[in-house]
């Protein structure tokens, strides 16, 4: 440990500096949009080392001490998996920043602090991707959640926003407590809290009942973070009450951070314990898909619907975990690959869906679905964007969502036993149920008449604010690109799954 590989830490360093700089910019200027600009520049700067690190793989001159970029005695690893997810987090934060600019300007919100907190949360997520021991991971996870608790209550004049924040805070703290309890049990039994050592040490204690209990508690803790059923009850209320750009961050960034935790713990720390975490996650995946989808059908508020949709999507992402219940070590990387691929695609399409929802919602002045009727009449472009994102979420080719589901089916069926087949069949049925409510949005926008008393000309005249327009364009392009050339997402998934494949081999 003589020298530190600064190249590997560069994304975190840049983000940390950006966090500080935003505070300085905030107190030195009254033009608050400059804070957002600073933050975006920081995001741009941070993505550069992620890319260079990815291409460094195998090049002698830029590979520092050892090829693996293992730092701090194995607690912090920058590998393909970490890089792909860092990319997802930075992309998500960048899009959320774009969404926030217009939103914050529209009312009297604190702006500077908002950006500061948002980037701090993003920094936590980026650290999370590299965390390979429980302590680092818990600290990172709280860095993701802490600012998010505050951000959820940003509309402080609105009681629903307060409720959102409080509910999120309380469940978040309970989740943390459960997680820490589970971690302490695992640590007590094995004497280590670093994942690579735990993977070895857990084999010996796999039969101890307390070990099972520890694993279950860790899963419970992350279950709250990814808002899987039955730990989902905070999700719709928080999503509806929080400022919508924050909801976008919660449903993509924060959720993905939870998935990173689950992925790392399940596949990197406990690959020997698939029979312990597999069955409960099978159940959680099944319940999330089914409950999320069925409840979503009844929703009339678009944000609540997207909340339940994100619960159901979490179920699809969990399905490969469930399928891994009885699989052997050599196809665990398939399950890992499927979840990461799904996450990448989900991030792009869900952010796009939120972007379009924010534009339409702010123009109509309501997130009630019935007020959006006849959207196609006054803005064919927005209606088309809405169709693109929601049909992608429904998994209709040639939009990106189809390949996410495809990868998930591939991983679950590839396991080759009934744990996999059964969750695949459940997912297939759920994909059909999900279409019912995704198509409801399309129906309202394209097929219903414009409600009485809506001034079409005024709505037509309004333009899409350019930051959100840029976010929309970027995500729409991404959804179509990843749908037509899904190999891109698949390669990212495979690149990240190398870490698990290496374990299995």
């Amino acid at each position, binding site marked *: 440990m003589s020298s530190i590989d600064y190249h590997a830490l560069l994304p975190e360093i840049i983000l940390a500096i950006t966090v500080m700089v935003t505070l300085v910019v905030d107190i030195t200027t009254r033009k608050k949009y400059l804070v957002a600009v600073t933050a975006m520049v920081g995001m741009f700067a941070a993505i550069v080392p992620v890319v260079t690190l990815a291409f460094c793989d195998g090049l002698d001159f830029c590979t520092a001490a050892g090829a693996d970029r293992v730092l701090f005695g194995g607690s912090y690893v920058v590998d393909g998996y970490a890089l792909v997810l860092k990319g997802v987090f930075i992309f998500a934060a960048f899009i959320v920043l774009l969404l926030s600019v217009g939103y914050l300007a529209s009312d009297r919100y604190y702006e500077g602090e908002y950006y500061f907190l948002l980037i701090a949360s993003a920094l936590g997520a980026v650290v999370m991707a590299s965390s390979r021991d429980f302590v680092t991971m818990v600290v990172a996870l709280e860095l993701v959640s802490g600012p998010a608790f505050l951000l959820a209550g940003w509309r402080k004049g609105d009681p629903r926003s307060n409720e959102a924040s409080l509910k999120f805070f309380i469940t978040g703290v309970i989740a943390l407590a459960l997680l820490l309890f589970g971690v302490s049990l695992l640590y007590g039994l094995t004497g280590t809290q670093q994942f690579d050592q735990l993977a070895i040490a857990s084999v010996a204690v796999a039969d101890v009942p307390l070990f099972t209990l520890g694993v279950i508690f860790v899963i419970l803790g992350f279950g709250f973070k990814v808002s899987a059923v039955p730990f989902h009850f905070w999700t719709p209320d928080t999503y509806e009450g929080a400022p919508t750009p924050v909801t976008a961050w919660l449903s993509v960034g924060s959720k993905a951070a939870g998935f990173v935790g689950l992925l790392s713990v399940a596949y990197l720390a406990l690959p020997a314990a698939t029979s312990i975490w597999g069955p409960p996650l099978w159940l959680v995946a099944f319940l999330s898909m089914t409950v999320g989808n069925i409840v979503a059908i009844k929703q009339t508020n678009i944000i609540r619907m997207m909340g339940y949709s994100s619960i159901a999507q979490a179920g699809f992402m969990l399905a490969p975990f469930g399928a891994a219940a009885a699989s052997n070590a050599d196809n665990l990387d398939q399950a890992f690959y499927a979840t990461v691929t799904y996450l990448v695609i989900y991030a792009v399409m869900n952010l796009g869906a939120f972007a379009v929802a924010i534009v339409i919602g702010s123009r109509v002045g309501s997130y009630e679905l019935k007020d959006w009727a006849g959207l196609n009449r006054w803005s064919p472009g927005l209606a088309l964007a809405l169709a693109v994102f929601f049909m992608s979420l429904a998994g209709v080719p*040639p939009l990106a969502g189809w390949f996410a589901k495809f990868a998930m089916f591939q991983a679950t069926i590839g396991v080759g036993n009934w744990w996999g087949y059964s969750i695949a069949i459940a997912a297939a049925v759920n994909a*059909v149920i999900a279409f019912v409510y995704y198509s409801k949005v399309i129906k309202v926008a394209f097929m219903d008449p414009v409600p009485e008393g809506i001034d079409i000309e005024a709505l037509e005249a309004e333009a899409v604010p350019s930051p959100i327009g840029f976010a929309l364009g970027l995500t729409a392009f991404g959804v179509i690109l990843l749908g037509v050339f899904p190999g891109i997402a698949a390669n990212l998934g495979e690149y990240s799954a190398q870490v698990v494949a290496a374990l299995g081999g």
Partner: protein
Amino acid sequence: MDWFENGWGLSLIVFLPVIGALVVLAIPKAKESLIKWTALAFSLVTLGLTITLAVQFDYSAADTYQFGTAMDTTWISAINANFHIGVDGISLPMVVLAAFITVLVIIYSFNHWPEPHNPKLLLAFVLILATGMSGTFVALDLVLFFVFFEVVLLPMYFMIGIWGDRGITEVPIVNWKIEMRLYASLKFFVFTLFGSAFMLLGFIALYFKSEEALGYRSFSMIELSDIGAAGAFTGTFAFLVFAGLFLGFAVKVPMWPLHTWLPDAHTAAPTIGSVILAAVLLKLGTYAFIRIAIPILPGQAIAWAPFIGILAVIGIIYGSLACLAQTDMKRLIAYSSVGHMGFVMLGIATMTDIGINAAIIGMVAHGLITGLLFFIAGSMAHRYHTRDMTRLGGNMVLMPKMGVLLGFAAMASLGLPALAGFWGEFMALLASFNPLEAIEATSMFRVLMVLGAIGTVLTAGYMLYMLRNVNFGEPSQEWADHKFEDVDSYEWLAWAPLVIGTIAIGIFPKIVFGATNDAVVGLVQKAFGG
């Protein structure tokens, strides 16, 4: 023309329409005639390329894939899915049919706009449909096939949902009152999606299983049929996979009892939607049976054949009887599709070269004839503002040319010899007299043959019932004083090719068999060893 033969020509046929759709979307809404001509131009160029394809096609080697891309044109390397396309004698007639129907539909739409207007969006959807249809027929990779198979759903969903019938209907069981178009579009999508979700599970299962025989995982239809013919897929595994594929394809065909989306979708869709749906989309299912289910899982195909045959004949009888109970002209034609597709499936179920040839010519004929019937029904509804056959009557007096065309289409549909519809029905029945011996249900198929023959009589019954109600007699009080415009020039332009095609194939079935026969014989021999 090297570029044309090594995949670019076929790729253009598939993707030119979708490029056209993007161009159409980029044109401002106000320039309506520019939008129409652009769409027509793109579809005509595609048709031109398709005809070139049919002319250049080497009919002496109809059982090989031609004009295709190389098998290893990588598309998604992570799952070994390739952009592998090609046509053989089985897919060629389908590709030509799809390209023709697209052009005719666009010509027809020049002066028939369903409400709400918006030609820009409607034509964009038609062009996207064209890509999905021809793509499905030329795909030789299961993932590629799946994507194209699904691409057609969304435009059709929009077409029914936006431009569909605004009448109120009552949803069975729950008794909700809802507009016909909304109910039909959702039902269409959910049924098809349900089937194709399980179809996809089947595809993925084949992908993993192929590793045992090939040493690597493959989605290639060619490789999978090679190892399938060699008996790589057996037992419960094959049974489950076939069940998944069956569900996906049978919903699309549709086979009884999965057909219930069809009458609603056909009735609610705007005229051009009904035409595309009937003429091409239904064929995606039967084509997939011939191209995927039989060659890859021949053992299961034999095991399922009696079951498929029985469902097919139930479809024939049920469809015909349902027709007799209809008062809505479009709904009657829709149910007649259930019957006709029953004959196609009966042909396939025999697993013989005669039966599968019958199925393909039946598909083409049904595309031409039912397409024409829906065109005419749409044009009549356009003029009468009703499709209720109890109110219509005396059409021969009011619109003699339209009446003659309707009479012609009805005769063709009931299987009159010397018209295209005859061959499919006749040969399907002929094939069921001697189904593949390995099925070991020859006597059962002979019973099915008799029942199917009764079905042809019923078909004649309901077609004549429609003609009596619509064409014959004196116009009622309601219409007697109306002046109707008879078939106009756009309608002539759109319909004449269908009429000519129906007669030509009726007299020279070799137009179709010339392409299909070698390919079908090759397929049957490979799958069932002659």
